[in-house]
């Protein structure tokens, strides 16, 4: 196998004295997809949030380019390349377009590139019809689709998806899977959580199970 892009080592996390994660190690390889399963409350979302820099671990180290760093010291610079998709996504006030385009203004794309990728994304996700609707009035499944599109349009190096398809209909799931496969082939690393392994058939390269704070493959 090639070099890992990022290596998270010794992640520990406690909430109010309850240790949720115990010495978890996770390597993220470019162009590979990891499926993370585990019972409700086992810590899947917490782990993804720590990797995304949205939750502070009690302890963690990050290794890349052959060097080890403390989580605190490098997470800010790393998280630019990592996008986390909430299990229950939050759509911002405004239209579907403004939500999907949100992150584009922080990229180095120019105007035409932005509007091109925006158009392509809406088309792909089947959101062209609702493009100008207020995002908060959408149905649960469509909201999830919008959040999904809002994340992958940025083509980050690492995409963390927290049960991204739980509320999607069959067609949308297939579409999303196709999309992820394409991104993978372009070198993106993906970590996805879910309770139905079969949804992600043909997409995942590795399957980890989280039990009692520990990762098992």
């Amino acid at each position: 196998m090639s070099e890992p892009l990022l290596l998270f080592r010794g992640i520990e996390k406690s909430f109010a004295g309850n240790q949720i994660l115990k010495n978890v190690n996770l390597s993220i390889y470019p162009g590979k997809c990891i499926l993370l399963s585990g019972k409700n409350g086992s810590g899947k979302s917490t782990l993804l949030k720590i990797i995304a820099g949205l939750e502070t671990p009690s302890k963690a180290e990050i290794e890349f380019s052959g060097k080890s760093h403390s989580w605190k010291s490098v997470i800010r610079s790393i998280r630019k390349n990592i996008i986390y998709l909430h299990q229950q996504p939050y759509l911002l006030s405004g239209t579907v377009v403004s939500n999907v385009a949100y992150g584009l203004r922080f990229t180095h794309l120019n105007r035409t590139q932005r509007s091109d990728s925006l158009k392509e994304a809406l088309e792909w996700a089947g959101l062209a019809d609702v493009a100008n609707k207020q995002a908060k009035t959408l149905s649960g499944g469509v909201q999830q689709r919008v959040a999904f599109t809002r994340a992958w349009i940025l083509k980050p190096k690492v995409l963390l998806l927290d049960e991204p398809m739980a509320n999607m209909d069959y067609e949308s799931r297939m579409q999303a899977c196709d999309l992820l496969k394409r991104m993978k082939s372009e070198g993106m690393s993906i970590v996805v959580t879910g309770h139905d392994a079969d949804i992600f058939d043909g997409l995942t390269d590795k399957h980890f199970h989280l039990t009692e704070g520990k990762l098992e493959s």
Partner: protein
Amino acid sequence: MEGMLISTQQALHMLLTGDSELWSIVMLSFSVSFKAIILTTPPAMVVAYSLANGNFPGNKIVLAVFNSLLSVPTVVIGLLLYVLLTRQGPFGDLRLLFTQTAMVIGQMMLCFPILVALGYAAINAADRRVKETSITLGAPWWFTMLTVLYEVRFGLLAAVLTGFGRIISEVGISMMVGGNILGYTRNITTAIALETSKGEFAQGIALGIVLLLLAFMLTAFLTYVQGKQEITA
């Protein structure tokens, strides 16, 4: 009672026929308070956001300080500012006493804690996912701040309206550092205080009603705009 009606009629008539003395008083009130609220809102929002999101240790104490500053009487702010701006005071050389600038500064001091306290409450009620979503999508901290502020804009509007109501209706500061000088620093509230001290209650109430009507037009407009936004939100 009767006198009140007549005085109100008179005041409204003067307002509509463009009585220049009344208008200058009214305009002065609004221009001073507008300046104060517009200058105060941005820094107050930044402070409120920092208090709600920063996890520096003194957080809660600072918040309690702002909350208790809500209880400072306007005349005390006026007195403090007077002591600062008086000739032999530290800023006496600026010759700001009995000017509109002094009134603006005083009113800014008055509404700052209000905007911080209420802004904090609004921002704190925001869903934590707003900030997380913004950060993970790559926004710099100030854009994340703007996103959060935009999500809670109705709460912030309420804060700003409350702050504005507070300063346009205050009299202690205007009286103390403005001086209630006709044509220079007399605003609606100091004019009311003057009429009241003369025993001309009807005229005081009439001026109050003028202020109320203008405030109503302003807030009705804002509520209308807010309402329009909400329909599409």
